């Protein structure tokens, strides 16, 4: 797909998102979340389009997009792996899980695999302390994760090709 065509699709989708909400500033975050959900990041085109539509300076939208950890300005992989490193998970060795995933995927937290399949992130709490150490892939939660289970879990998402 050409760059222009992709850009056109992004603009068209953003228009659809904007049409779904009243044209008011207070829906900014909801709109950004919708765009984030679809593309797993906020494309620059979308942010500029939203700024025009709502009459909010681009700087303010950029501020919001960089403030929330749930919003990203960098493209993400097809599947986003979020490993919890909150207190409960941390004392149950969540960093071992992160290290294991980093070794399998050959990326550091915050990076995306070269084939664009997986992104690895750490988050401060998933609110699932009872099943620590926890991780979430896209929207599926995995509790009491062990290093040996990680590869198995990754296989559910087509596994890792580059080894």
């Amino acid at each position, binding site marked *: 797909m050409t760059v222009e065509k992709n850009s056109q699709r992004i603009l068209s989708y953003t228009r659809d998102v904007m049409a779904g909400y009243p044209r008011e500033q207070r829906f900014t975050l909801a709109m950004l979340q919708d765009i984030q959900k679809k593309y797993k990041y906020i494309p620059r085109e979308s942010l500029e389009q939203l700024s025009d539509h709502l009459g909010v300076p681009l*700087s303010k939208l*950029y501020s919001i997009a960089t403030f929330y950890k749930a919003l990203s300005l960098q493209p993400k992989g097809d599947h986003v792996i979020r490993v919890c490193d909150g207190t409960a998970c941390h004392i149950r060795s969540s960093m071992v899980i992160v290290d294991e995933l980093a070794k399998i995927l050959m990326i550091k937290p915050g990076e995306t695999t070269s084939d664009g399949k997986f992104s690895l992130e750490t988050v401060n709490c998933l609110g699932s302390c009872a099943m620590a150490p926890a991780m979430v892939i896209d929207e599926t939660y995995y509790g009491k994760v062990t290093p040996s289970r990680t590869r198995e879990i990754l296989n559910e998402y087509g596994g890792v090709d580059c080894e």
Partner: protein
Amino acid sequence: MIITINGRQCEAEHGEFILDVALRNGIQIPTLCHSEALPGLASCRLCIVEVIENNWSKVVASCVYPITSEIEVVTHSEKIKRMRKTLLKLLGARAPQNAYVRKLLAEHEVTPAARFQGDPDENCIMCGLCVSACDKIGAGAISTVYRGIAKKVSTPYDEPSKTCIGCSACAGVCPTGAIKVQESHGKRIIWKKEFELLSCAVCGKPFITPEQIAYLKAKLNQEIDEILCETCKRKAAGERFAQTCADLTASKGLLR
């Protein structure tokens, strides 16, 4: 209503902020992020004072605390002085080499804490006054981005902003002079964007960007026929006033 500041009776309107009343009565409260032209931000916290009401005392930021009853205010109690010193210590850790912060530290007899190793090149104290000024003037080109220790003031994507008009109001209000403006050979560079500078029609000092003129025209909805710098504009207005007075005196034969 009448409020008491440091034992002195001061007249105050309902809803007025303590800081404004204090300043009007010549009572000094230290501030960093305060500008009379902009709403209070309460981010530097230096303007904290003690408010005593119904035998209860509380610490508030005077720049945003509205007066709603006849309270008693103490601006330099031992508690406030101690807290202000801590705040200054932290500000000193944030911008250790900044001249203005150092001056404040010296004035308040604060020794910088050795355990804080601040960045010697850091001058910004993250008060957000520049962002407030940019919003108020209308360009809204800068904002605070990221969060926590990575937080900073920046244009979107750290690139030269399309909306910035190069007015340098942000640099003008900055209490610590953290925003760099380069001016030379009729050019101004601010936030990585280069602007041409137009000169004053009288004294020839380059001082305004074409973007600012265009912005003013749109905002005032009128033509700007002569570009005058602040000093020359004031001088021209003064001369006009003097001329009018002279004309009036002459025509009516009034004598002073």
